[in-house]
């Protein structure tokens, strides 16, 4: 068992070339804060990128930041906040979902990990995901070659967008060593409206109405009965809370909040949650804190058409026990299962309700090995993905099996052993 701890691109190149020559697959991680997601690693050796740390370029007026892949997200967020900016996609912090305590560990996620997993928070509906903000990368492919893609400017269509391809690839295509992100001004202020006591169905309708208005809602979540008290906020009582966040300049937020109040006057009793409580509230929604219960009960992250979400959840509950809450206007459903993942039942229902995908973000290693963690793809698409993987990592040495089961890609192209050994 070897763990490489590179400090530079050259170190990463050496490690990957070692893995190639030894035919020894590597598990690739930064802080490992999301290591519990995906199929359990089958690698004997590891590449720990957490020492590749540091912001290498930050020009607030150009809206651009570059950093080494292992740079802690909290460092980046702190630096941006000093200049009134942020990562608009609100990267999820997985620490609490996996039983960690923020503040007791300094390994709460890296910028490279945020890119590799593409787990965006509530602002996804307005500002896009991690993939929408990545501008450029340097990476070492599974062929042991250092390549770059993209650049440092926000508008660029030169060549294929391999940077986006890294988003959500879970380290299976290349080891990203450096990233450049578009950053944006953070809102001056935020306020959240809470409508209490709505059924899932009425909540989905209310959120659609709000998102279809010009109020520029930047967060729309529904916490059903019983979930409300599991997030930080000043809300009292157990009844359901449908939450709408408005961010921006002070006078604009006040005006838009008023617009929403009028629009939703009929929906139910409305209260306002100001910035002090609003921020931790949305952080907890982002981080799946309602299901951070120190267990390994299965937790699913489901992406589907917002209007269908509550129907799917209702149908699911006819078949099995599940706790649910909604983000992204309903388009993101967090589910905690009573006992087993029930992957087949869930996925059949998602397909029946307009399609989408489900990712098993928490479960025991045994379950994660037994059921597909990521949504299985139709054969032609799965074949295309496998061909793509083979083009980046023909010998299957980068995080093999993390996303799809089975041996490293069967499409291994001819490999030539050449050059003298360094021995």
């Amino acid at each position, binding site marked *: 068992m070897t763990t490489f701890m590179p400090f530079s691109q050259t170190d990463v190149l050496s490690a990957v070339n070692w893995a190639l020559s030894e035919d020894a697959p590597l598990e690739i991680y930064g802080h490992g804060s999301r290591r519990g997601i995906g199929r359990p690693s089958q690698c004997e050796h590891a590449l720990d990128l957490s020492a590749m740390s540091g912001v290498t370029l930050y020009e607030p007026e150009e*809206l651009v930041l570059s950093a080494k892949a292992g740079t802690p997200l909290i460092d980046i967020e702190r630096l941006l906040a000093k200049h009134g900016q942020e990562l608009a996609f609100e990267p999820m912090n997985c620490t609490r979902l996996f039983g960690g305590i923020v503040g007791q560990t300094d390994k709460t996620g890296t910028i490279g990990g945020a890119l590799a997993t593409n787990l965006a928070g509530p602002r996804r509906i307005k500002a896009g995901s991690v993939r929408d903000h990545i501008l450029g990368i340097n990476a070492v492919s599974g062929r042991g070659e250092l*390549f*770059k893609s993209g*650049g440092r400017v926000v*508008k660029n269509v030169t060549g294929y*967008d391999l940077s986006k391809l890294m988003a959500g*690839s879970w380290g299976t295509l290349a080891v990203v060593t450096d990233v450049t992100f578009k950053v944006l001004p953070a809102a001056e202020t935020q306020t959240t409206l809470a409508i209490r006591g709505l059924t899932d169905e009425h909540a989905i309708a209310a959120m659609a109405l709000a998102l*279809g208005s010009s109020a520029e809602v930047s967060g729309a979540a529904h916490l059903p009965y019983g979930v409300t008290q599991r997030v930080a906020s000043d809300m009292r009582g157990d009844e359901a809370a449908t939450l709408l966040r408005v961010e921006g300049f002070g006078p604009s937020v006040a005006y838009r909040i008023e617009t929403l109040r009028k629009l939703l006057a009929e929906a139910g009793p409305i209260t306002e949650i100001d910035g002090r409580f609003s921020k931790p509230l949305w952080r907890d929604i982002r981080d799946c804190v309602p299901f951070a219960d120190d267990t390994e009960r299965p937790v699913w992250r489901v992406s589907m058409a917002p*209007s269908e979400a509550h129907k799917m959840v209702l149908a699911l509950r006819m078949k099995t026990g599940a706790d649910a809450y909604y983000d992204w206007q309903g388009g993101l459903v967090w589910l905690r299962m009573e006992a087993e993942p029930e992957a087949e039942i869930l996925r059949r229902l998602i397909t029946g309700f307009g399609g989408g995908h489900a990712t098993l973000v928490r479960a025991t290693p045994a379950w994660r090995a037994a059921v597909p963690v990521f949504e299985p793809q139709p054969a032609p698409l799965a074949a295309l993905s496998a061909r793509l993987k083979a*083009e980046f990592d023909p010998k299957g040495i980068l995080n093999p099996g993390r996303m799809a089961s089975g041996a490293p890609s069967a499409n291994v192209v001819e490999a030539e052993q050449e050059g003298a050994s360094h021995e």
Partner: protein
Amino acid sequence: MSGLAMPKPDDETMRRRATIVADLRVIVPGEGVVDSTNEMRAFESDGLTAYRQLPLVVVLPETVAQVSRILKYCNEHNIRVVPRGSGTSLSGGALPLEDAVLLVMSRFNRILEIDFPNRAVVAQPGVTNLGITTAVEQEGFYYAPDPSSQIACSIGGNVAENSGGVHCLKYGLTANNVLGIEMVLMDGEVVRLGGKHLDSEGYDLLGVMTGSEGLLGVVTEVTVRILKKPETARALLIGFPTSEQGGQCVADIIGAGIIPGGMEMMDRPAIHAAEDFVHAGYPLECEALLIVELDGPGVEVDHLIGMVEAIAHKNGSTTCQISTTDAERMNFWAGRKAAFPAVGRISPDYYCMDGTIPRKELPKVLAGMREMSEKYGLRVANVFHAGDGNLHPLILYDANVPGELDKAESFGADILRLCVKVGGVLTGEHGVGVEKRDLMPEMFNEVDLDQQMRVKCAFDPNHLLNPGKMFPQLRRCAELGRMHISGGKLPFPNIPRF
């Protein structure tokens, strides 16, 4: 055509033309196959009109099944295919090849579904960009990316080129506004990526497809996100004595946390050409003219107008007009929107470039362009998407003067080299196509380009889809697949291990 090398036509395909035409007629009956020289003339060029080439044959399918059969047939018979939407590409992305079937998607012109609760529109790829907005505007919605050709360009073409527009700083490019596509691969397989849900269940193939310039697959359906129209929009028209001051003003606006709906800059030659043409009342004494448009609720717009005005003043603006009516706002834009035809009036031909630079490098790049302008003896006017650093220098030339097109192209290439040198890129929104193909090595080394080509191999291993575009030279996939494992065993690699 000025010395542009395209892939050598395949003799076998050329010889079999009559059979191919007949076989395509079986797949697409009726008038969907066009093979007469006269009728094919309409398709010999796209928006990059300096280049013309008649295709082998033109086919206009109407169904996904036909597209699938055409591609499968061509794949099996080793026939090249060039996909085309409305043909508005400014980089020659849809330039035909002598031995290639030109696959025209214009008959896919229907909106399939409008879904207001999920704020999504499902459209066939031949629907125009503006057609999507037209379909939803009665409910107060619109589709945000607005390339200047939006009245004509197709949404399928927008996906192929990852089109932008003046609003993309705030609202994103095509890639940020497309939720899903259906596409046909070169072997005829039909695959769907995304849908009304967000993000991908696997690799972000949608992200790779967007901006792939028709080299990876043929889009047959597009699902886009629509947005509610902002309540109001107002604009400021600000003049500066130097481009440095204009540039600093842009930086300060963004530094103050303001992301305008649109932020455009013009240099002196562009200001004068536009004013002479549309008489928008532009100040003629300034070196840089900035249009800043703010959109949103009235109270927000008013608040931000005050902030921007103060920032402009601090940066030494010499004039600052603020629109109070929509007519006034449109008037501010009239000159900018007419900048290309306005330049067309003062020169027989112009060549539009599309580099992006870090904004702070603007004065340096403008100075560099002035030097080049003298060296080449050609005038240049600049319009600039100031917020995102996307520069559109317009090089003025006369195609009837022998050698001027070549000179304009060399001038353009030098500008793009300068863009890359200061940390920018070759193209911000027009695409590589044939135009900037041979400049790719300015930005990417061989390893970078090989890895991009390997992506191509996963989609189209025989290089049949739109060859001769984007990549300076094609290398066979088998050759790209070889691995050179050097180094062998590394007992003491220079890395800490635990």
